[in-house]
């Protein structure tokens, strides 16, 4: 399989503080790659760097296209859907308006967009019930579903997921990860997943990279990583 996303020697900084010190990794076509690491290791920054939301250098190739110097809005237009930390819900807008916004980077084909909204309502019946409700009033789990549905409205080549389990009850987390696994299987959407919950992430992912203070310290197939003694001790807790 070829890589849909190829990141090479990526560095990123907030002001004078260097957060990423030249990391390299890949996401395969139709695959799921996860970045693991402790708080502050640079996982979120990696996703933000890919989307052009922090100052960065190095090279980021999407499907062979260099997107390193592009603006966030243009990177989205190449088919990268980023679900940010905290889900990025437009809390004051309705559920349905949130979905419409997901299609903002697509050509304005009303019929197709409406069709896709109906599809997401089939996939997430809860969202249909709440279509005219202010999105900020949705529960955490519903907002995460909305974030995924909104990302799918782009018909993305690649989804960047920043801690989809954040702040959710274990049962809901399980549900969300099942949804992601089904999505990946059924639509072949490639995913780059950042997650604190390492065991769930390794279950979903094909490949994993371990980040410590801005550098990659270990990489391999998810199963191999999950079986590694030191990873077990440090991240899986058994």
């Amino acid at each position, binding site marked *: 399989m070829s890589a849909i996303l190829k990141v090479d020697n990526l560095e990123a900084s907030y002001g004078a503080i260097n957060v990423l010190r030249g990391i390299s990794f890949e996401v395969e076509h139709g695959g799921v790659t996860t970045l693991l690491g402790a708080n502050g290791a640079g996982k979120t920054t990696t996703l933000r760097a890919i989307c052009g939301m922090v100052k960065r250098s190095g090279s980021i190739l999407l499907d062979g296209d260099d997107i390193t110097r592009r603006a966030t809005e243009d990177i*989205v*237009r190449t088919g990268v859907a980023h679900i940010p930390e905290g889900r*990025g819900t437009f809390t004051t807008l309705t559920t349905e*308006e949130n979905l419409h*916004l997901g299609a*903002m980077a697509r050509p304005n084909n009303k019929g197709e967009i409406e069709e896709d909204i109906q599809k997401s309502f089939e996939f997430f019946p809860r969202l249909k019930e709440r279509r005219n409700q202010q999105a*900020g009033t949705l529960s955490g789990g519903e907002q995460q579903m909305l974030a995924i549905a909104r990302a799918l409205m782009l018909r993305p080549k690649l989804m960047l997921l920043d801690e989809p389990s954040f702040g959710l009850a274990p049962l809901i987390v399980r549900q969300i990860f099942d949804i992601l696994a089904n999505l990946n299987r059924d639509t072949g959407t490639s995913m780059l997943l950042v997650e604190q919950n390492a065991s769930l992430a390794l279950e979903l992912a094909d490949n994993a990279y371990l980040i410590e203070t801005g550098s990659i310290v270990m990489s391999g197939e998810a199963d191999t990583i999950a079986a590694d003694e030191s990873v077990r001790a440090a991240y899986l807790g058994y």
Partner: protein
Amino acid sequence: MSELFMQQVVAGFATGAIYACMALSVVMIYQAIHHLNFAQGEMAMFSTYIAWQCMAWGLHWVLAFPLAIALSFVGGFLTERIIFKPIQRAPVLSHIVVFIALFAIFNSLAGFIWDFTIKNVASPFGDGSFMGSTLIGKHQAGMICATILMLIGLWAFFSFTRVGLAMRAAAANPESARLVGVRVATMTALGWGMAAGIGAVAGILIAPVVFLEPNMMLSILLYGFAGAVLGGLTNPLGAVIGGFLVGVIENLAGTYLDWVIESAFAGIGLVVHLHGMFAEIKLTIALLVIIVVLVIKPEGLLGRKIVQRV
């Protein structure tokens, strides 16, 4: 008394229409950059001069007004691009200084180009009473209708168009908006353009009432602020309702407050003559409205309290 009362209410609505327009343009920019534009009134005044100049050159108002509004839109868009985009991350005080600078620039520029003598602007709606009514003149009726039509137009734009939704998203959550591909910077500039256009409408509507001169919008902007704060800075509809309310409150207070206070004193056996004092301090009432609202209900009548789950 009821005849006078109705007359004051209707007249209040008519001036309220102007405040509503100003409030609306204030809210448009507040939504986009979360600052109150102190130069909004002077921009509107400048737009009105452009309309007047076009008519002085022989253009019919049917052409002159839309042209002035369109030019104002472009001017507002460029103002954001050239002046405010570079300082978007600057502290509040820097913004205020620039707003005041713009205020002074537009004010003195208008005086320099068109001098400070008052100019007469004819009403596009004509003079005389509205359909034989003793309560309302043609121009007043026109102002109210124009404001309501503009509000409906804006509501439709924000509710049913893709650009309108993108503008709301950019105002509500700029970072997320960028992540779905909304060009936030363009939306901000568009907001400025629209605010300038709405301000132009306000200026053109008020000019036949107060005469055109460089300081004509000074107090009107204050009323506009009062309307915007009263209705809620986050809600365009609230701003319009707030503007109308301020107009009515101001008129009623100016007419009746003397009488109310004199009667109250008479009730306890004191004879007091206020000599129409409250008609003179109408502007104070607008400022009082701002303060009272900010103390009691800071989000305004229709302003939304943001619901957020973290």
